[in-house]
Structures are given as C-alpha cells and as structure tokens.
C-alpha cells in the first residue's frame, strides 16, 4: 500500500468537519536501535514486537469484548 504523493490537504478541505475521533497506532518500527527496529526487541535472535508482548505482560489489558 503506497500513499506517496497523496495530498492530505485535498482530503481535509473536501470533507465536512465534526463527528468522530480516529486513532493511529504506530507499529512500524521507525529507524533502528542497535540493528533492531524501534518498538521491537530481540531475544536470542528472535525479534518481538512490543505490541504483541503487551498481552503477555498485561493479560488483563486486552479488553476486546
């Protein structure tokens, strides 16, 4: 999926204001830290995403119901 060259101002000005609030979860990794993408960490060669491990750390924090 590519959004290169997409004009946000066209989106914003052509749509009516008011209503909902959206949310963006950034889980792309952004650059790297010591060779591992940020938001991720590596144990014994396996790369883990913090978003996945959150569930194990905080099992009560998965309110999907």
């Amino acid at each position, binding site marked *: 999926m590519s959004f290169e060259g997409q004009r946000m101002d066209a*989106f914003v000005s052509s749509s009516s*204001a008011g*209503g909902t609030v959206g949310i963006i*979860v*950034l889980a792309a990794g*952004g*650059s790297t830290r010591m060779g591992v993408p940020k938001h991720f960490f590596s144990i014994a060669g396996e790369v883990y995403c913090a978003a*996945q491990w959150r569930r194990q*750390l905080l099992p009560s924090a998965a309110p*999907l119901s």
Partner: protein
Amino acid sequence: METAVATVCRPVVVVLGANADRLCDEAKQLPVHVAENKRWKEGMGSSIQIGFATLVAADGGLEAGVIMLCDQPLVSAQNINELVDVYRRTNDPIVASAYGETVGVPALFARNLFTELAALKGSEGAKQIIAKHAHEVHRISLPAGAIDVDTPRDYEQLSLLTENTNI
C-alpha cells in the same frame, strides 16, 4: 492494538513496517485498518504520513486524530479516552501527554493539523508539531507514557514492575 480498539476512537489504523508480514495476520484479526509503511527505516515521519492518509481515507469526516505508539504498554484505553474527553471539553487543537521532561504521544490533534502531520519527513515525529504549536497544547500528566519497551532490558524491567505492582 487492543488498547486502541478498546477506546472510543474510530476508525483505528495500525501502521506496520518492520516485520509487517509477521504482524499483519494478527492485526487483521482486529477491527482495524492496516497500512504498511515500506519506508519505515526513514523514521516515524513516514509512518505518521501514511497513518493519517489511511485514517482520512477511512473516514473523511473526522474531527480529530490520536497518535499512539505500540511500545508504551502501560498506556491504557482510559488514558486515550481522557485525551478525547479533554478535547471535547476544551476544543484545544492539541491534547498531549506529559511525562518525564517531555510532552508527546499519545496525543490528539484536531483536523486542521492533519496536513502538517502528513507533511512530516524522515525522523521527524509528532513532537515537532507539538513544539511548534506549544501555546495551543493542553497537557495531561501521564507518567505511564515514559515507559516504553525497545530492548530485552526494558522488557525485563517492565515484567518486574508489573509483578511487583500487580498492574
């Protein structure tokens, strides 16, 4: 991702990049829009750009958008909902989280800032927009925002913290 789904915010957009192939299947089990940033190595700016493009494409009538990170495990849906509540009460164009010595994400941005956010480049992040509009920012204290997980050591420390405090 589950935290975002549990908030009052809709739609939910998840921006993947590194290891997207491994995370995509899991993300698609949730009621979220998945966007892939193939330029993730350039930094957070490109992910924010794609995130807002996807968000607006999913709902052109959005009043505001929240940015959150996947690696702030102690940030809760309640914390995010508070940002929205404050925005609705004050109409301040930016509602951001204050922790440590900084003000950053999770943060809410009114729609008139979407174009600026989508123009972020490379390693630029939402903090640039928050700093630029400092006089318009409503700050909410969120000590949990200071805790992120980027390394095995971070993970171990957080594991100990959650065991000791029964979070």
